[in-house]
């Protein structure tokens, strides 16, 4: 029996759904690695400005943290959007909420992203 094929347009819902799943697979090493390292192995008592500066001083961790920020936060905010979708039934209201969430996501991501990137410069400057 030959496989029957159809062409279905991929819309925001489809992409978001896939995104939640693909990001999941990437998030496991990123998030678990981060949590294991910072919360469990190193522990909050060892973390201070110096530690952070040293950490962000390596390209590896800088890239790592940017990936983490990019994937985890976007995943989480889209997750929040899905949860809110369950309770906000008016399409107009929901569009506004989505825009607000987008701004929220962009602002926080930028705030954190700039810090990560600039941290290196700060560190270099302080040397």
């Amino acid at each position, binding site marked *: 029996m030959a496989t029957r094929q159809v062409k279905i347009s991929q819309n925001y819902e489809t992409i978001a759904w896939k995104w939640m*799943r693909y990001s*999941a697979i990437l*998030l496991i090493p990123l998030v*678990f690695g981060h*949590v294991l390292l910072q919360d469990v192995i190193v522990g909050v*008592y060892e973390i201070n400005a110096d530690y952070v*500066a040293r950490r962000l001083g390596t390209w590896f961790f800088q890239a790592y943290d940017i990936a983490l920020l990019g994937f985890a936060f976007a995943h989480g905010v889209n*997750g929040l959007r899905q949860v809110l979708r*369950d309770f906000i039934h008016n399409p107009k209201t929901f569009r506004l909420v989505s825009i607000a969430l987008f701004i929220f996501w962009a602002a926080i991501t930028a705030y954190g992203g700039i*810090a990560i990137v600039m941290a290196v410069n700060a560190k270099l400057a302080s040397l």
Partner: protein
Amino acid sequence: MSTLKNTLIGYVSYRGREGHYSFLLHRLTGLGTLLFLTIHIIDMAWFYWAPDLFEEALQLYRSWPYLIGEIALVFAVYFHGINGLRIAIVDMFAPNKWTIAAERNAVRWTLVGSLILWLPSAAIMLSHAISASNEAAQMLDKLGIF
């Protein structure tokens, strides 16, 4: 009629099986993690934007209530992550594993897996806290937070 209220009543009063509770836990842990993550991004960014606040935040992280929260967070991340992976894999690669027996089993293993990761993690974190607690208490005293 408020659907929010009815939904919450449904969440807690419906006598579902593994899937129902794993859905609730996944949602709860996802939202909890997001809340933490948002705060965490902001305060870590203070490292660059506002170093003074950053120091204060670090101190806060070392308080006992926060520590309990952190241990819970670690569980949340483990559970949400493993459960999310389970959902993603079955959805994308093995839809025919969405059967009652397989689902009940998978949820139980997810919980077991999360606990296996979490219990040692929690123990390590606690031991850090205890060994640090003298120092920490002194530091906190000095700062006058407690």
